[in-house]
């Protein structure tokens, strides 16, 4: 499906969609959105790129196999889940929040890291499945 229009468009769409997915991830705590949807949007962004430029090109952009997203994401989620035990002697999954807030991002809490973990796992899993299936002859 290599058309010039799609190829050109996807070159611009990929960064925009990725940015959008991060936006969805970050707004999740107050407004509709979150790590799961964000991850799906990011995955769709890469799939669109793969449709336009071919999987090998997308893989080149990614630099590494999307499967690596999965352990990294799970690790982040796990660390943020156990952080209350380690840092504050509280039960697992207790929300920890930093004092004060940062511009744009707002208050940083352990929930954000957890959601980031979910985001990465979803990208990794979705892309691994789709890439594997499309590569298998």
């Amino acid at each position, binding site marked *: 499906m290599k058309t010039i229009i799609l190829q050109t468009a996807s070159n611009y769409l990929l960064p925009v969609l990725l940015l959008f997915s991060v936006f*969805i991830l970050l707004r*999740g*705590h*107050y*407004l*509709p*959105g*979150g*790590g*799961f*949807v964000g991850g*799906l*949007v990011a*995955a*769709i962004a890469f*799939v669109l790129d793969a449709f336009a430029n071919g999987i090998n090109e997308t893989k080149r952009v990614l630099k590494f196999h999307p*499967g690596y997203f*999965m*352990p990294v*994401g*799970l690790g982040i*989620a*796990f660390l943020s*889940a156990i952080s209350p035990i380690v840092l504050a002697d509280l039960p*697992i*999954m207790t*929300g920890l*929040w930093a004092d004060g807030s940062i511009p744009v991002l707002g*208050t940083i*809490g352990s*929930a954000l890291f*957890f*959601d980031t*973990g*979910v985001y990465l*796992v*979803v990208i*990794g*899993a*979705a892309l*691994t*499945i*789709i890439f*594997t*299936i*499309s*590569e*298998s*002859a």
Partner: protein
Amino acid sequence: MLTAILLGFLFAIFLVFTGKFFRGKFAVISSLIPISLFAYFLSFISQISNGEIVTQKINWIPSFGVDLTFKLDGLSLLFALMITGVGSLVFLYTSAYLKGHKYLDRFYGYLSLFMAAMLGLVLSDNLMSMFIFWELTSISSFFLIGFNNDAKDSRKSALTALGITGIGGLLLLGGAVLLGYMTGTYEISEMLSQTDLIQSHPYYALAVILIFAAAFTKSAQFPFHFWLPGAMKAPTPVSTYLHSATMVKAGVYLLFRLSPVLGGSELWHTTLIVFGAITMLYSAIHILFRTDLKGILAYSTISALGILVFLIGIGTQAALIAAAVFIIVHALYKASLFLITGIIDHETKTRDITKLAGLRKVLMPVAIAGFIAALISGGVPPTLGFVGKDLIYEATLGSQYAIILTALAVITKILLFYGGFVAGVKPFTGKLPQKFEKIHMPSPLMWIPPLLMVILGLVFGLLPSLIESAFAKPITQVMFENPENFQLKLWHGFNTVLGLSAITIIIGTVMYFIIKPTYAKENFIQKLDFIAPKDLMLKGSTAFEKFGKLWTNFFQNGYLRDYVGIVVAVIIGLISFLLLPNFQLRLDYSSLEDVTVYEIAIILMMFAAIVFTVFTNSRLAAVASMGIVGFSFSLLFLFYSAPDLAMTQFSVDTLTVILFVLVLYKLPKYLKMTKRKSRMKHGALAVVFGSLMTLLVLSVLQEPKNNEITKYYAENAYKLAHGKNIVNVILVDFRGIDTMIEISVLIVAALGVFGLLKLRLRPKDKIK
């Protein structure tokens, strides 16, 4: 004691790394392990004969009452010495018998594994740890029987033996759990004080039957005996060690050990006497029809095990002493007969009794050992066999049905006399065939062990007090609270027992000279095989295998649509079973007034898309219209103020359609692959399932609404979790662990797809 047991296991592991060393001429060094263990256990004799009991307890899983409790008393010392003693000789013998075998190290590994497991079995006071060691002996026996793993027969026999003894082990576990349930402990020594409680318990009979089944399978009692002749496919040292001297006596040991706990009831004694008697006679008669030396020995071993079970069944002190002494007698003569058979087989390459004769001219020391072994086996004075035989007759004469039981014992003993002489004397007498003239004596490592054992049999016969103080007395102290005093003697004076002994020896000798083993007899008995327990069980297992194949092929046919069909059908069955009997549909039509134009439009769109999906001829179009259904759903979610759900549904549907397209790309173009009939069937299934789901949802709506949970989250989402989006807060905070597990599942799914599709089997790895 723990170290003593672990030594064998450690050596087996050690052999994995140093196999090369032990495979060569240093093999004989490995005998140091059983010899040192033998010396270790020998050092306990004076302590035990003074009536002491040595115990050691190591906590293992105290919360379940499963501990490594080791107890050394008269009974376990007898078995421990037998295991390590016969073990030492077998280890020495093997180094010559299997000299240069490419798997000799492996063989030693299995042997020491077995030795350690068997030691653990007889030393355990805890039924659970005993069960574990019990299973370990079955497993090591499996490896040893199948040692010649390129022979189909060996593998089959190994599997049969494992199957039978494995089932027995499972039943032992059942019996142990029941006993533990009744008494609240797995320690046998603690059960002893609760005998009355156990015997009046409603589960008593069940527990006894389970224990019997375990003992009978392990000790090859009728009708489970058939694995033992099959096990003779193993190399001779294995037959000597496992299938004659030690492992097959584990069942007898179990009965011995538990008879103070479970014994005393009608059930216990009658069953043991009946099964023991059937086994000892049935297999003693079988001896008459065999021409293979090992076959003869196998059946005489089964018969001897029958005698032991029979004696435990009688259960008097005299009977148990007789059993204890007979265990020693049997180990000494049967092990040496097996080793002698091994020498004959090794030198002449045959075990066919009709072809063997005159070997005394070339194998004189072996012939002497064989002759003495036959004397012990036949109970000819002054051997220990004579003492043992007298004790058996005394026990049967003192029992309830003295005449019948004594008659059975005498007949069995006559046949065993015959068997012993055929195996121990016949190959060495007569004229030496020409082809055997060039036979040399084997290495002394092979002929000294049997000679040593039979000489021991003579020494013990002349000095039975050695056995009495070391084993017989301590064992009676274990078995009875107030044992009567007794003395083992070679000479009892002229009495009934002596008369019976004389009859046994005379008839046995006459039989030996009259009856010759021939092929004709062996062929005759093979004609009756179709009613033998072995064939019945084999037919049963073959039928079961066929049934299993049919069953698997029906349910695991590899068609995804059938799997989905079965899953859906089962769900339909379950839901309608629960939902329909009390189902009343009360529809509130007034709520339809709120329906908006948008909603109706979406419903119509979905309906059209579904119809199109079902009837279109293009796969791509079907997938696309399925996507329309999905997007319409996310619109519905949006209308009912669930934007999070809508977003997710939208993205998921996009990806699903992409996935479908990717898969379809690789499939053939045409859509109508299935027959009309099966499509109708699937359609009906789908319609029924859909209707049922509709009913389910409607019935949920009829239930009163519970808003408490929603309210709780709405109130606390910001207060506790600093979030305004409840859905997200639930996902990342309130029910964060769920999310954690969900993303793990996601990863597993992705890895599954990756693994399945990237798996490239090389042609030779492909599963056929």
